[in-house]
């Protein structure tokens, strides 16, 4: 990247800048909520929490909301399809995404941007094209914000990440205190800045130096890590080792790790009848999809009553194997970006890093140890 493409915008101008493009874009920014930071629609009254560590719930919910209407139906008529074009957002079901506007996701952390590129492989892969995800995804410009202060639970460098990782984003921003340095990554990002050129000025050599120093410091702050070399091959041989009996033991079986995870994508599809003034309608309803979790017993319960993953052991194994073995097999990618959400929020302190170290070191010792 030639340095001439690096731009500077004053931090104090950013809100005005976003406000000036809100006619063209539906803008999502990190926002302080009563449950922590969450991505929400831009509001001029609310400043960007520039030093936020990361959002409580990953911004996967913008493309893949917790509940999403696939289509609605009415009894006695043929199915009314919205052609995959009407979307209902997580928090504001009334406020459907306007179809004319493009999306702008502003200020997501590089790991979460990388997670989008992983989800793209699933929802936009060769085998299946998910219109609900792709419709939103393809009209979105992603502006990420490099991490000046990673958390103690961050281990992105053990995967493919870095505090200034560019994958998945169109533009990456660097917080230089009073100034914001913007670096376009994709053609889309370049065009975005070009079109709004009046807000930016050329970055100086000193700005770039400052940015480099910040990133060096930031990288040093990521102290935890796991050597994941050949993890797929190693896990190929661990399906029935006795270690799983121990790993799951303290698991409570809640859905925190999967629901907060930026790469967990499992969902359930059900039909829900509409409510009319608090009363369940008998003739109108919606087919919805909502997040589901491999940690729940219902996830694999067969209609016969049989459950192939009857205990926490099988469910925990599924979660780890899916991310670190099946996804590498199917997509040639580990579906973990090292954001540490599952570690930080687990009620019983199950630490994914610890689990991975155990699994990686078990190989050589435990070949014959079967349960």
């Amino acid at each position, binding site marked *: 990247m030639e340095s001439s493409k690096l731009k500077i915008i004053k931090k104090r101008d950013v809100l005005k800048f976003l406000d000036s493009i809100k006619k063209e874009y539906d803008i999502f920014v990190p926002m302080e909520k009563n449950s922590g930071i969450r991505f929400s629609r831009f509001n001029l009254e609310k400043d960007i929490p520039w030093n936020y560590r990361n959002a409580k719930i990953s911004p996967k919910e913008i493309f893949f909301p*917790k509940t999403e209407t696939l289509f609605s139906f009415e009894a006695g008529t043929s199915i009314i399809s919205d052609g995959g074009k009407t979307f209902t957002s*997580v928090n504001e079901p009334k406020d459907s995404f306007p179809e004319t506007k493009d999306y702008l996701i502003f200020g997501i952390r590089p790991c979460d941007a990388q997670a989008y590129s992983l989800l793209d492989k699933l929802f936009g892969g060769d085998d299946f094209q998910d219109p609900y995800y792709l419709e939103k995804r393809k009209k979105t410009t992603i502006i990420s914000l490099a991490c000046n202060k990673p958390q103690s639970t961050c281990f992105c460098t053990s995967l493919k990440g870095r505090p200034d990782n560019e994958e998945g984003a169109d533009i990456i921003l660097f917080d230089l205190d009073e100034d914001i340095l913007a670096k376009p990554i994709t053609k889309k990002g370049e065009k975005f800045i070009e079109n709004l050129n009046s807000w930016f000025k050329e970055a100086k050599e000193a700005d770039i130096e400052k940015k480099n120093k910040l990133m060096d410091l930031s990288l040093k702050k990521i102290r935890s890590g796991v050597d994941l070399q050949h993890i797929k091959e190693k896990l190929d041989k661990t399906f029935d080792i006795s270690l799983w009996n121990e790993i799951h*033991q303290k698991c409570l*079986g809640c859905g925190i790790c999967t629901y907060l995870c930026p790469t967990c994508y499992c969902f*359930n599809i059900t039909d829900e009848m509409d409510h009319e003034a608090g009363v369940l309608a008998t003739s109108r309803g919606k087919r919805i999809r909502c997040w589901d979790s491999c940690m729940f017993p219902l996830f694999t319960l067969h209609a016969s009553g049989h459950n192939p993953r009857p205990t926490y052991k099988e469910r925990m194994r599924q979660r780890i194997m899916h991310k670190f073995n099946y996804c590498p097999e199917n997509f040639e990618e580990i579906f973990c970006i090292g954001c540490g959400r599952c570690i930080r929020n687990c*009620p019983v302190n199950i630490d994914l890093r*610890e689990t991975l170290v155990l699994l990686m070191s078990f190989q050589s010792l435990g070949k014959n140890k079967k349960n």
Partner: protein
Amino acid sequence: MIEKIKEIVKKLFKENKIDIFIGYGEGTLPLRATPCFITGQDDIKKLVWNSYCLNNLAVYLSGFFLPQLKKKDVKLPRIGILAKGCDGRSIVGLIKEHQIPRENLYIIGINCEGMIDIEKTQNAVCKMQEIEIVSAEEKSGKVLLEDEDNKKTELKKEELLADVCKDCQYTAPLIYDVLIGEEKRKTKEKERAAFIKEFEKKPLEERWKYFQEQVSKCIRCYACRQACPNCYCKECFADQTKPKWIGATDDISDIMFFQIGRILHQAGRCVDCGACVRACPMGIDLRIFTYKLIEDVKEFFGYEVGISLEETPPLATFKQDDKQEFITEP
């Protein structure tokens, strides 16, 4: 205290009195301990006891004694468990509800001096966004915290206690096989009780609004349910599909149905251990509702959970003069 615990556990294994011991081990994060399962003498060294042993360990017990296991004539394990006051009261509740056999338990009661609230501690130093606490060391009633910039802060443990611990009335269990430390019953005015009294004075609309605000944060991860020792149902009403009681969406009516249902099922059973509140990733104030139930059950039926093995739980009995107003005048 930890040496005493280890000594007892060692003896239990040596004399072949237990198959598994459930205690706490070192956590991987500052201010955290983690539930720890010990199956032999070699692992006893993993045990720790400090002010971070927040989890209610009773939650693990019913899984060892599922009805299908009893039916199969499987030899049920003998379990040793470290129990703080709250864990101990949960265990009593589970015994009375016939979920766990008393004879298969060896309860090491411990007088708990209260556990430290992680978020409170972080915020006492600085907001997480600014500076993160990366290590903590406990020394005689004080906690020495170190942040990511290597700055050290010393705080009094007492100021950092979890809300449930500040209000705790039974610091040690009342039913145990051996007790470590002295049993102390606190009698001081409960902060939460005062808060509830204030809250109750508010008009219905305001209280309803608060409830809605709180539960609207819910993402239905069911961590509150899973962390609760009382939520041992083979199949939760929220998971049932035939009939299906609750929609799967995050519509407020679906969320409320789950929360109200779960909370009401705690009447006369909740010991106010705070496991649900701590487990909730979204910071829902669940305790204001469960605590109200505790107060009501005490007021209407004079019953406190987990105090004795003999007294019949209020929901398992009926008396002619039972109070009815709570049904007719909410």
